[in-house]
């Protein structure tokens, strides 16, 4: 892969005694989407958290544009053009939508106004909700805010933890469409998804994780056509 912008090499991490993530290698190119699928408890979420610095990596390298950001706290990781959107608790509920975006742009406050405009173009429904406290929004609207916050720093790598979780089918469509549009802007996207079929359909590449390790990886189309993958992961939706 010539254009690899982000690479995780041999990453191990965990919370307590054992490792939840063992020796995982993943690479993502700019302007492409890599989706990680797998059963519950496979360590997908923990892996993404490790890349973001939320969970401490134990071994391995986390290379963005050649630079190892492993071992940095989340606030420093985000200064390397990496933006992470957690699955839950991903907005500031007591702040308004605009204030949430302002916090999203914390690292680059001067670009706040212009970037908020571009995010609102991506999610026009939020335009009328600007002054509403995020805690009073519906689940789908909150996901939009969470996603929008991450875009405020124009990251080069976007880490998404189950962006479609808890959303209605229409909202899931909208979210995946937004993710596609973000890819068109040249951003590298690494996402974890339970909604395997729909996610792989918009992805360039896919990785299957089981029990903390990489079981399979390759172009998304290959995974979609793979019988084992289809049986195990594509039949079920979140």
């Amino acid at each position, binding site marked *: 892969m010539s254009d690899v912008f982000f690479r995780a090499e041999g990453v191990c991490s965990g919370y307590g005694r054992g490792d939840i993530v063992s020796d995982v290698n993943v690479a993502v190119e700019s302007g492409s989407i890599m989706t990680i699928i797998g059963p519950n408890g496979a360590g997908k979420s923990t892996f993404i958290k490790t890349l973001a610095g939320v969970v401490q990596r134990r071994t391995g390298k986390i290379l963005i544009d050649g630079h190892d950001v492993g071992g940095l706290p989340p606030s420093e990781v985000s200064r390397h053009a990496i933006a992470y959107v957690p699955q839950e*608790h991903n907005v500031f509920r007591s702040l308004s939508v605009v204030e949430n975006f302002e916090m999203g742009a914390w690292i680059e406050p001067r670009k706040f106004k212009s970037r908020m405009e571009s995010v609102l173009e991506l999610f026009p429904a939020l335009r009328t909700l600007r002054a509403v406290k995020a805690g009073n929004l519906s689940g789908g609207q909150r996901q939009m805010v969470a996603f929008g916050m991450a875009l405020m720093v124009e990251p080069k790598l976007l880490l998404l933890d189950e962006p479609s979780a808890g959303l209605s089918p229409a909202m899931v469509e909208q979210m995946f469409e937004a993710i596609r549009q973000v890819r068109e802007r040249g951003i590298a996207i690494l996402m974890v998804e339970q909604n395997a079929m729909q996610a792989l359909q918009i992805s360039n590449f896919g990785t299957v994780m089981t029990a903390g390790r990489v079981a399979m990886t390759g172009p998304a189309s290959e995974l979609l056509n793979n019988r084992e993958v289809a049986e195990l992961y594509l039949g079920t939706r979140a």
Partner: protein
Amino acid sequence: MTAQMIVNGLISAALIAPPAVAFSMLFGILRFPNFAIGGYITVGVFAAYAINVQFGLPLWLASLGAMLAGSVVVWASDQIIFRPMRASAPVTLLVVSIALTFVLEHSVRLIFGADVKGFDLPLERPLVFGGVHVTRPQLYLIGAAVLVVIITHLLLTRTRLGKAMRAMADNPQLAEVRGIRSVLVRIAVTLYCGALLGISGVSAGLDLVIEPLLGWGLTIPIIAAAILGGIGSVYGAMLGAVLVGLAEEFTTLVLPSSYKIGVGFVMITILLLLRPHGLLGQPEIKK
């Protein structure tokens, strides 16, 4: 229920509103009820006393000194004690803060002695407005409280730092993820709250007497006000202060005034049993 009682209640409210705001803000980042606010207030008032009475400088200068002393002691205790222990259970931190408040107040007692003192102020007759007596220091007290409320409101809603403080209180992990350096925001909060507690000490010294256990006596009404308003909610703290101040005044109709401190405790108990998240606050978001 006379007008004088209402005014007295409002003066009490003006006394406890700024520290209640500080307590709420601190709770947002410390995540436990910090009983050391009593000790911090005592440090503030005695710093002011030292500047005003022992060095003979004017009260406004002493007030600045109190704010500085407050900032330093809150920041230092966070650096040395609370931040390193941030993974401990809230109750452990509570016990530590109670120990700290005693250490601070008794250190002050050791240095300044236990006698009751007062600021170096000219004696004046109280002003009278339609049958209600108010002293000039009490007016300043109310003014200071209003100023604190306005400044805090502007800080939290109009400045980037203030919004970051609210964001951190709301969801510290997300704040880090979005690039907010929690260490720096934490320092800012401790310095600001320390200044508030310092100036609260001066107010307390003006309205009550200056003695080393001054802070302890105020701790309960302050916490009651903050809990009443919803711990973590700054505007709730202000509202809570008014209610506690009025409640304390009205209880003197029924009980001897030395039971006043009991009022705060009873209010806290009732609140916690009925509405654990207070009037304006949000229920604690469990991790």
